[in-house]
Structure formats: C-alpha cells, structure tokens
C-alpha cells in the first residue's frame, strides 16, 4: 500500500527515542511561478521541468529572507516573544503527533522552532552574533532553507505544543512565519498556493464553478426529497435571506461531508430559517492562515463580507470546518469587520453547532434518537476548534456544544481517553495545509496518536464511529484511517447524525415556501 512503514499501534502511549533527520527526505511540491505571483509573492525560476520540477531560489534570497524575518519580528509580537523566551525545558518535546509518529527529533516542537531560532539568534541577537557556537546559532544557507521547507511542512499548526509550554510558545506561529519567509524567497507550497489561487479566481478551494455548484445543490435537494419526501431546500445566492451559510466546499460533494450539509439544511428547514449559500463565498476554508499571510487571509475573508452585503443577510453561520472556524471566530471581525450591518443579537459569526444547539434548547427540533442506534459514537475535537477558537459564551463551550448536539441525537456516546480530547486533542495528521498526497507518508505517521486512542475506544467501549466537525479532519480520516484497519464510513459528520435523527413533517400552507420570490425585495 505504501513505500514506507506504517507505524504499529500500541496500547499505551510510548514516547520514542529521537532520531535525527529520519523524515528529512520529505518535502511537499513547490508552487509554480504563476501561483506564487497570484498571491503576491515573487515568482521563482524553474531549474528543471518535467514531472518532478526543481526550482531555484530568487536572486538575493539570503538578504531577502533575513529582511522578511526582521519584518515579521516587528509585525507579530507573538513571533518575537517566542523567539526569545524558550528555555529549552523540553516540556513540549513529546507533545507533537508528528514526533510521536515519525520519531524524527526535528519534529519535536522546540527542535522545529530552533530551525528558525538558530538563524534568528545569528542575525538578530547579541549572543548569536558574537558567540554563535555557544548558543546554537547558525548561518543561513541553502541547506537551512531546504530544512525549513521540509520541517515547516511537517507541522500542522495544531497548537498542542503550546498548551503544554510554560510560556505558551506556539510553534504554529513560528511555522507560519517560516512559511511566509519561504514564500517570499520563491519557495511557496504548491498545494496551499494553488488552492488560494482557485479561491480568488473561482470562489472555492475545489475550483467548483457556480453552475456546477447550483447543480449539485439541486441534486442534494432531490436526494433529500427521495429520502424523506420533504422539500428541503439548499438555496444559492438568494437575495434578502436572513442567514448566509459559509461552509467548506468539500461539503458540496465529499463523503461524509455532504451528509453534514444535508443536516444543516434540515435544521434550517425545521427552524423555518430563511437562509442561503453564496457562490461568491462558496468556501469557508481560508488557507491564508496556513501560509501565515495576513494579506491573503484578509483577501479571502473579504469575500464573506462582500457576499453578506450583496445578499443583504442579517446573520452569518459557519458550517463544519476547523481552521475556517478559527478564522471566523477569532479573526473575521478583525480582518473583514466591523459587521455593524448584521443583526447584533446573534454572535457574528455563529457556528452551525451553536445554531443547532439553540434550536434544540428551544425545542424546535423533533428528534428520533433511535435513528442512530446502529452506532456507538465518539468525537474528535479538531485542533482549531479546540485550541484556537470558542463556541457559546463561556470558555470551553467548543467542547460541550458539539457533544451536546451529538448526545441530543444519539443514544450511544463515549469520549476517547483523557489526554487525547478537549484542549489536549491530537491533530488528525492532515491539518495546517498538509492534506496533500505528496505528504502521504507524514499523514499516515502523524495520525498514529489519534488512531491509537480510537482503537482503544473501539476495544474498550465498542465505539463504531467517530464524528468530527472539520472538513480536513474528515478527509484525512477517511483516507488514512484505512491504513490502520478502519473503514471510510466509520467517520461521520456531526450534522450527519442530526440529519439521521431529525424528523421533518411536510410543512403546511402557513409556512411560505422558502424559495418564494417575495423574499427578494
């Protein structure tokens, strides 16, 4: 199945001995010049064409890299403080799923930071300028750049290390800075940059044009009708709707994502909401986050503001997507706010789980839990929801609300073992812009801690399915958990469970059909 060894599952977590450089052979493909330029980065030069093209760094790359590092040090307090304050206590060394899965010493969070910190010290600190050997500072060379490119694409920016660091040093911030520096000297990552390019030109990560989107939504409406004989609508670009739903484009056709989308539609239907999707903002994902680019992240976010204004909606709701929710919850107000034109009595933006939980609390949903009795569920906390955003109006709502939704629609739910959930959750292994086939070895190895915890839950509690609220997690799990003996359909969307259990009755005359033209004023 693979040209590398799939790690063995162990019953108890084992911290491996560090092996230096065993993953140094792995780097993702480099972005082509046109995709560099589309994002505002310098185009690199092609050294060798063909299947495995090689690129050379731009002229003057060394000075430009150091200048960029200086620029980022002045722009981001976190990056600057993190470069200085690590005491090498080692507390983070055994916290990264990529270290646990690959054994590579450079995948220990502090060692990853040190790849950049050693250069920071050399060019920006007194000690590193005059006593480089003493403090582990080193010159910036092409080998160092290659090492950066490899290992800063072996970090999913999941922030697990940061939870355990006495100073909250966040390797994700360091990785983002490193990727930003790399992109500025001609070494952007192909997968991330091409996807962002597609968002700008077509509107979503998958490059799904408006017509195709409309068709697939229509198809879904038919599927739902065939299934339950209720005309649940999935409106697109409906002017005057109250709610704009932005959701990851994988929800439009990937499994099990699409079952989640049908779940949102049914909840909206049951609550009588006047809602719409947008072809302009047909993507919640924002890969600008992954490459550490404020400018690109803002450009992508602005589509949502513009779509909300054009459609005249009053609320914005996000579908199930982890990093999109981070950008939505934590950054959207900064990047694309202020949202004074929206209804201030709801959170801006709101998560679909918050929406559904409210509807459940108000008794608006008619639920038949037994519809999910064929499953014993567990829940994977996605990193970006768990450690980089929130839900509800109190700290930790992001853990309780999705679980409350699941428990409201399922009879059988158990959590995985402590230390692998909530804010200590393990990454799925494919987050942070690494969900690409050229990094398959990393994805298979990095899933190890999650796969172990899930396997234990299967053995001890008879768990049959794992629910998630992130498009990347779902894609990674369905593709990679089979390496560990699971099947694709054991991964479910949270709103797929809602979809199974919700009982809809054909609504009578008093309820206006939701695609009524009157809605457009």
């Amino acid at each position: 199945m693979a040209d590398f060894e799939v790690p063995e599952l162990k019953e108890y977590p084992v911290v491996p001995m560090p092996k230096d450089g065993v993953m140094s052979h792995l780097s993702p493909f480099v972005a082509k010049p046109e995709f560099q330029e589309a994002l505002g980065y310098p185009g690199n030069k092609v050294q060798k064409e063909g299947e495995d093209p090689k690129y050379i760094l731009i002229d003057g790359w060394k000075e430009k890299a150091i200048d960029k590092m200086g620029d980022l040090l002045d722009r981001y307090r976190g990056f600057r403080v993190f470069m200085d304050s690590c005491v090498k206590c080692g507390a983070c060394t055994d916290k990264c799923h990529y270290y646990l899965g690959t054994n590579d010493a450079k995948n220990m969070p502090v060692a990853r930071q040190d790849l950049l910190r050693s250069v920071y010290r050399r060019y920006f600190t007194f000690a590193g300028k005059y006593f480089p050997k003493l403090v582990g500072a080193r010159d910036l060379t092409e080998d160092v750049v290659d090492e950066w490119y490899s290992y800063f694409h072996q970090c999913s920016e999941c922030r697990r290390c940061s939870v355990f660091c006495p100073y909250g040093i966040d390797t994700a911030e360091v990785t983002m800075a490193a990727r930003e520096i790399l992109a500025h000297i001609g070494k952007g990552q192909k997968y991330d940059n091409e996807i962002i390019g597609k968002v700008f030109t077509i509107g979503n990560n998958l490059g799904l044009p408006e017509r195709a989107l409309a068709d697939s939504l229509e198809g879904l409406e038919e599927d739902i009708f065939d299934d339950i004989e209720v005309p649940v609508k999935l409106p697109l670009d409906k002017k005057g709707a109250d709610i704009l739903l932005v959701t990851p484009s994988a929800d439009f056709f990937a499994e099990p994502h699409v079952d989640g989308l049908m779940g949102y539609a049914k909840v909206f239907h049951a609550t009588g909401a006047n809602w719409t999707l947008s072809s302009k903002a047909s993507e919640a994902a924002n890969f600008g986050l992954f490459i550490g680019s404020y400018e690109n992240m803002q450009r992508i976010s602005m589509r949502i503001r513009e779509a909300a204004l054009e459609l005249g909606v009053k609320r914005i709701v996000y579908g199930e997507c982890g990093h999109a929710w981070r950008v939505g919850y934590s950054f959207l107000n900064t990047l694309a706010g202020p949202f004074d034109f929206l209804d201030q009595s709801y959170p801006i933006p709101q998560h679909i789980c918050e929406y559904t939980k409210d509807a459940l609390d108000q008794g608006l949903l008619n639920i038949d839990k037994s519809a999910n009795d064929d499953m014993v569920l567990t829940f994977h906390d996605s990193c970006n929801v768990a450690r980089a955003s929130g839900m509800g109006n109190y700290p930790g709502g992001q853990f309780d609300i999705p679980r409350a939704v699941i428990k409201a629609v399922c009879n059988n739910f158990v959590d995985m073992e402590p230390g692998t959930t909530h804010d200590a959750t393990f990454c799925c292994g494919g987050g942070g812009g690494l969900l690409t086939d050229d990094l398959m070895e990393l994805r298979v190895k990095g899933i190890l801690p999650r796969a172990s915890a899930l396997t234990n839950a299967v053995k001890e509690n008879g768990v049959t399915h794992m629910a998630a609220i992130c498009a990347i997690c779902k894609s990674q799990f369905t593709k990679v958990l089979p390496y560990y003996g699971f099947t694709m359909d054991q991964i479910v969307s949270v709103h797929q469970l809602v979809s199974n259990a919700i009982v809809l009755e054909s609504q009578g005359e008093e309820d206006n059909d939701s695609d009524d033209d009157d809605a457009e004023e």
Partner: protein
Amino acid sequence: MSTLIAVLLSLATIVMIVGLARKARQYRATPAPLKIPVTPAPKTTGGVVLRLAKEVIFFASLFRSNKWTWLFGWMFHVGLALAFIRHLRYVIDPDGMLGFMWPLISLEVVQSFGKYAGFAMVIGLLGLFARRILVARVRYISAPSDYLMLLLIMFIGFSGLMMSFVSHVDIVGVKTFMLGILNLDLQELPESAPLMIHLSLVALLGFILPVSKLLHIPGVFYAPTRNQVDNPREKRHLSPWAAKYDATRGSDKNAAAQ
C-alpha cells in the same frame, strides 16, 4: 579588589535593568495583530490576570506537561525567590527609603526559610541538569549555553551555601559594602574567597540576563497566547498596522489581482 567587585556589580545591575526594560518596551511596541489566545481562554481581563498568575506562581502548564521538570523547575525558582527576598537585607537600610520593608524582611521565618531555600534551589538545579543530560530528547535540544546557565546559577548557589553553612563571612561587613555602593561611598568588602566568587558570578548573571533565554522573565507576561482576552466576536481587535489595511482591502483589490 573591593572596587572591582563594586564596579562589576553596579554595571551588571544597570545592564540588567536597562536591558530588560528595553526588551519589555520592544515587546510592548510590537503589535499583536490577531487574537491568538490558546483556548479555552478567559473572557475577561480579570480572568487573564488569574491565568498568568497561575503560570508565574505555580507553572501550571508545566505541571500538566511534565511532573519531573515541574518539580525540579519549581523547586529551583521558589528557592531562588525566597533566597532573593532574604538577600534584600543586604541592600535595604532600615533607616533608608525602603526601610518600611525592613520589619518584613527581618522576620525570623523569612530569614530561616531563605537559608534553607538555598538547598531547594540547588537540588532543583541539579535535577534539571541531570534531566538535560539523561533524557535524550532534552539533550538533543540543549546548546552549550543551556548547560552553562545551570552551572552558573548552581555555583552561585554553592558559594552562597558555603558562606551560610561552612565558612561564615562577616555579614555586617557585606551589608556595609552593599550600602556603600548604593550611597556612592565605597567601603571595603570583607576578605573571603567564596564571597568574591559569589558576587562575581552574580554580576556575570546580570550581564547575561538580557541577552539570553532568561528573557523568559518578561516573555512569560507578553505571550499573546496567554495574555489575550478571548472576546474576538464581542469586540473588534485592531492593531495599528492592521488598521491601515482596512483602507485598501476589499473588492477593488480583488478585481485588480485577477
């Protein structure tokens, strides 16, 4: 010799204070454009103060992370803090400006606690040193300076304990000397090898502090992952450079780029 030590100590104090203040100012001047608290995070400023207090006083995250490192690290720092408080008696003149603190510092508990705290500090340091050598992961991430830093503080501790428990020094003389520096009226330092070593190493530590990983002292207060209030939806967060982008963002830019 007295003059040399006096000059070193004074310079080191100035370098340390100015260095740390400059670093703190640099951190404050660098904007934090985005809300990046590691969640779940407090939703109020009071909550953030509590969160930081737990980190600074108890090393809460480290406790969650690794019990041995926590144990040794905490012993070392608490020992250091207590020893530090005990040392204030050498630089505070009961009749001077800070004399109001004197009754507190001279308390029997403070002074005897401080005395034994020196042991806690050194034991903690030995534990951390052993961990650095014995645990392969920690060994891998250690640079020479990481070992030297521990050794430096350890020797400060050893020489201090020597004076407390083995070869006593004339502490009245030490106090006269220290107050002499503060009043710019230089006095003789009592003759004692451990004392010379102790004070020289302390001066060295002062010089190193602002250019080393000891910057974790201001760093712990400035990390946005820990000191930000988690209220991005309720209140728009905008740093100065990010605010400039508000003017240029939007559809015009999108269209131009396509």
